[in-house]
């Protein structure tokens, strides 16, 4: 699970009274992850050591001058670069005390931003879309700068990234409500223009964030209605057909964030890694309509992973460098460390509470009951499954299942399933998850009939099918269980197993996996022990004893490793405390056992009442 840690203040803000902005123009990394340069919206640049929350130096331009772009640090030359009054490029070193005495050069066109990636050369992006490397620009500062953008087209956002050792300047523009993405490659220079799909009329993206991964540049953008889209641009075909023609840029909806009442105004989304997005200025789904939250969402599972309320006004600005988020809010610029471990289904499911799978289940059943008109015999169906395309196979199997008495079909169903599985394995394009799910649902299958089914499901990452298999198969071997374990879990916990066989396989799990698994088990345990009723509703959730058994098994298998693993320390301590309290409770109960038994005996002694005649004997 991603987590946001306790933040701390880097510096105070001096926001202009009436302006909606924070007074901060930019936060850029300096020599390492612990140093940042903060440029305010007027005249000064400050270098901070983040962990010390302490300014190291500060530079200010003369009164009357304004810094128009945030300063960057070129790690190659160990110099700072900034632009004042749009046209004056200023370059200085850390030793320089007075900015006015440092180098400056006036260029012929207005500069939009100076960008610099670590280990890269500073790049100057002009307001009209032209791009120059800083060195080549400074060799002839007054060189003419071409106009790339059309009339009434203006840059909204820009960045540069290093992809396959090539520098790219990426910027978005707006022209009469249309939004465009420009990908400018440097050395050799190519420019590609894309048109962003229109959102609801009148809505412009609030923020952009770009990342590069697996040969693709991914652009993430947030609209005021809470939609977070991702567009992916492949690096391969880039530059092949260069032209002014704007290509349509496909997009997919990654997240639909809750927006509360009205539209988002000052919000921002930042890509953290392949699965996580940090969002600021969007309401927390379970904390009312206030928008002053910083949240981390998992885009794979659309789950909220962590949230934090930020005191004061949110300006919709967010920077992230090496596991730290920089966020101006209220009158401070805060640093919030975060952590995004590899996302897992377990963690995601833990939050999802299985609601989704249940939904899918009913859906499948409803489709299964729609009768197919055709009536093919089982053999015919078998033939069909060998050759026919996916849709037909689905239709026929559905038909078969809905019409025939399943008891008679047991053997043939196994055959059918194994045919489907083997065909799926042989032909990657062929996969019939719903059909297989239906077959598993008949409960006439078991692992030994089609041993590859679970593995196939695992391979196809069909968790739903996996879950069904785990639920219905009585004879899954422990090795396979472990394989499933590596991927996800509640169903695994409920499968029957034998300690002796499971233990060696459990040992195969890596320590990270074990820690994660233990965390998940602990989470489950706490959840169930707090609220016993949830267990009653979630029919397919593991019982408390099952959870405890798994915890014990895992600890048995990995105890020595866990003891050595620093991350597991807290967890182990927690478990230890828990066990200790349980032991204490039991011993206390043991102590009063005698008394309670006495109580029981005493109750037997009948009430004497007001009067009785008794016989006693004295010796």
């Amino acid at each position, binding site marked *: 699970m991603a987590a946001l840690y306790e933040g701390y203040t880097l510096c105070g803000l001096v926001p202009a009274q009436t302006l909606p902005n924070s007074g901060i123009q930019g936060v850029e990394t300096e020599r390492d992850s612990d140093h940042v340069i903060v440029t305010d919206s007027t005249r000064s640049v400050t270098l901070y050591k983040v962990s010390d929350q302490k300014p190291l130096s500060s530079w200010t331009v003369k009164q009357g001058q304004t810094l128009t772009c945030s300063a960057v640090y070129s790690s190659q030359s160990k110099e700072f670069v900034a632009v004042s009054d749009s046209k004056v490029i200023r370059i200085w070193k850390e030793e320089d005390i007075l900015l006015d005495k440092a180098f400056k050069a006036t260029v012929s066109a207005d500069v939009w931003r100076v960008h610099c990636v670590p280990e890269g050369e500073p790049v100057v992006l002009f307001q009209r879309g032209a791009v120059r490397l800083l060195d080549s620009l400074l060799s002839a500062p007054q060189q003419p700068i071409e106009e790339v953008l059309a009339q009434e087209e203006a840059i909204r956002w820009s960045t540069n990234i290093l992809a396959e050792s090539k520098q790219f300047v990426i910027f978005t523009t707006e022209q009469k409500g249309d939004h465009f993405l420009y990908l400018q490659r440097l050395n050799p220079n190519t420019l590609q223009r894309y048109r962003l799909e229109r959102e609801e009329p009148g809505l412009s993206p609030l923020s952009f964030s770009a990342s590069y991964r697996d040969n693709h540049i991914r652009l993430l953008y947030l609209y005021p209605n809470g939609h977070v889209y991702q567009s992916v641009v492949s690096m391969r075909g880039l530059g092949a057909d260069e032209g002014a023609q704007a290509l349509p840029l496909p997009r997919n909806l990654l997240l639909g964030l809750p927006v509360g009442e009205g539209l988002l105004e000052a919000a921002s989304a930042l890509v953290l890694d392949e699965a996580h997005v940090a969002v600021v200025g969007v309401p927390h789904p379970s904390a009312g309509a206030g928008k002053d939250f910083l949240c981390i969402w998992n885009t794979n599972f659309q789950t909220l992973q962590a949230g934090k309320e930020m005191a004061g006004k949110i300006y919709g600005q967010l920077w992230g460098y090496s596991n730290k988020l920089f966020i101006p809010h209220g009158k401070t610029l805060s640093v919030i460390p975060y952590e995004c471990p590899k996302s897992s289904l377990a963690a995601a499911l833990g939050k999802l509470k299985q609601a989704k799978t249940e939904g899918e289940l009913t859906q499948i059943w409803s489709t299964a009951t729609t009768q197919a008109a055709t009536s093919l015999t089982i053999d015919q169906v078998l033939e069909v499954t060998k050759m026919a395309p996916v849709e037909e196979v689905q239709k026929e199997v559905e038909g078969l299942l809905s019409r025939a008495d399943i008891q008679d079909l047991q053997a043939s169903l196994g055959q059918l399933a194994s045919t489907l599985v083997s065909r799926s394995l042989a032909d990657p394009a062929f996969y019939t998850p719903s059909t297989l799910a239906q077959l598993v649902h008949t409960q006439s299958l078991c692992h030994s009939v089609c041993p590859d089914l679970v593995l196939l499901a695992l391979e196809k990452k069909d968790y739903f099918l996996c879950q069904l298999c785990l639920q219905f198969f009585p004879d899954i071997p422990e090795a396979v269980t472990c394989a499933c374990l590596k991927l996800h879990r509640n169903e695994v916990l409920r499968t029957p197993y034998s300690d002796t066989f499971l233990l060696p396989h459990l040992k195969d799990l890596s320590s990270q996996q074990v820690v994660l698994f233990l965390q998940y088990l602990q989470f489950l345990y706490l959840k169930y022990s707090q609220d016993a009723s949830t267990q009653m509703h979630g029919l397919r959730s593991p019982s408390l004893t099952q959870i405890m058994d798994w915890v014990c098994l895992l600890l048995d298998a990995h105890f020595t490793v866990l003891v050595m693993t620093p991350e597991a320390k807290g967890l182990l301590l927690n478990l230890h405390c828990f066990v200790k309290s349980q032991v204490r409770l039991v011993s206390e109960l043991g102590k009063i056992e005698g008394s309670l038994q006495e109580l029981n005996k005493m109750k037997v002694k009948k009430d004497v009442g007001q*009067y009785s005649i008794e016989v006693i004997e004295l010796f």
Partner: protein
Amino acid sequence: MGEFKVHRVRFFDYMPSAIRAMAFNSRTERLAVARADGALEIFNFADHYFQEKVIPGQDGRAVEALCWVGQRLFSAGLNGEITEYDLENMRPRYTVEAYGGPIWTISSNSQGTLLAVGCEDGTVKMFELLDERIRFQRNLERQKGRIISLSWHPSGTLIAAGMMDMIRIFDAETGHATHRLLVERGAGASKSKEVVVWSIAFLSDHTIVSGDSAGKVQIWDGLTGTLVKTHLVTKWDVLALAVSQDESSLVAGTSEGTVVQFQFIASTVDQQDKEWVRTRTFKNHSHDVRALAHTETAVVSGGMDTQLVVRPLLDKVEKNTQESALRKIAFPHRSLVCCAKKAGLLLFQFPDHLELWRVGESDGLGKPGDSLPVKRNPEKLIQLKRKGEDHICCSALSPCGGWLAYSTVSAVRLYRIQYNNISITKVSKLPKDLRSAHQLCFSSDSSKLFASSSHSSVVIVSLNQLECKHLHTLKPRSGSRQPVHLLFASEDGKWLAAANADCEIHVYNLHKLKLHCTVPVHSSCPTAIAIHPVTSNLVVVHADQQIFEYSLMQKEYTEWSRKLQKQGLHSLWLERDTPVTHISYSPKNPAHIFLHDMFMFCIIDQSLPLPEAKTMLYNQMTLRSLPEPERIRHSHAFKICKNFQHLLCVSLLEDHSLVVVERPLLDIMSQLPAPVRQKKFAT
């Protein structure tokens, strides 16, 4: 030994009254205890805490405070009166109206010359102590707000008064207030409530200690009028304070039922300066501790839960002795039940009424341990409300059940009861000599009524259908002025034994109407006496648990008694802390003596060997487990049965069945009002 049919009676709803005040006289070692119903009890701490005297209460008399002046005892109450008691005749001697509204407190100076009372109207009134009376002397400077508590400085020149929200110090000579000490109110919601200074103590070093309704015990410097130290001891009220005679220890009683001890010691070992340090907390009460006394060796406390608790201070007594044991006195040390043996009737005495019951019947026999089916339920035949304001002090039922008598401090009343068609008739003309009685007793043939009167005299009245006539007044030769608290008429009608608070037992020959003999005086007070129906031996049990048997014929202790004294009673017998209050004999077996205290009844078989020091005293369980022939080897004279508790009466009826009147303390507890709320675990 044998089987007994036992009538187990639990329908006597005896309810003791709450303790309101107490005063300890360290010279005579007598503790005076006042109860909510106005009754006054005197306990002799020198004689095993025996409840020596009881002065019955009176409607409307609410004693709020008690004060000893030498041997004289004074009380004051919310009725606005000061009362001095006549402890010889066990009645109020006189009552003086203070004219200051309800009186909250009374205190005498150490010289014993002045008595100060604190009144509702804000005055402290001084009374001069005269030999026979008290006389109003003057008022101290009148204050706004009632005077709740008073304490004299030992010098007699200053007097401290606890009031609402403050303490005043008066100059006893001029009558002017010299200091005003403001007492802080409680925190939170009680901020708006006046704080009541419930109790105050003025020590010889001019330290003033106060206990108040905000739960504080405060130490003040009386010379400067400054607060020295505050101890918050309870969330509720501190109701009572008591200081030891040497002023080295003081105790505070709270509404939570706790008693908190403070000691005047150096708080660290090498420090010279002493201060009042909170040391111990005792919790022996379930309800408010309203009254406290600090004796030399123990803390005595009492309150709403009606029990008098004597808690020895373990630094003052030898450990693991009888003296170091906690003692709770729950029942009176005299019998409130009278059993008519022949008629199977029980008379229960309440302060304001009498109840006459007939025990039930069952036929058939059962094995030991069985409950027999009750054929006829017990029946309340008569409930007799007393006349007048004075509470009943003693009562008696004749053995045949035909006569019933009771006495208050002002009058004796005698009734004739008919059972065929239950009716009760008051005998109208009683002899003049029968004005008031401390103890009443009928002769075994119901022909005579014996009433103990003033100066240990006994009035004999003959009874018949037509008239009641004064026969004679028996007077002891000793000239004792103490009241007779025990009377016993022998079965054959020849003897009457009377025991008084001077520990004397006089035996009169009723045929000759003169004193037969006086039993040698034992140092401890007799708690029960009886004359054997066959041998005419007098058995006496004392407060120190000693048993004597005295032959009236030989006028000497019997052989058995000498043997018992020579061998000594078993240590466990002597360690019992409730007195034997009743002795009876078995008509079947003359060797058997029945006696009981609160926790057990015992049959002493005089034919069996006495238990030696090493033998087990409580051996019934062991004997039960032994085979029949071996029992005789292990059995001894004391057959003790603890099946029934807590006992108010054990008596043997003529049909040889036992009547056992139980009043479990839990039943009493359950009838008390709810105690103050305390946070308990998981509530």
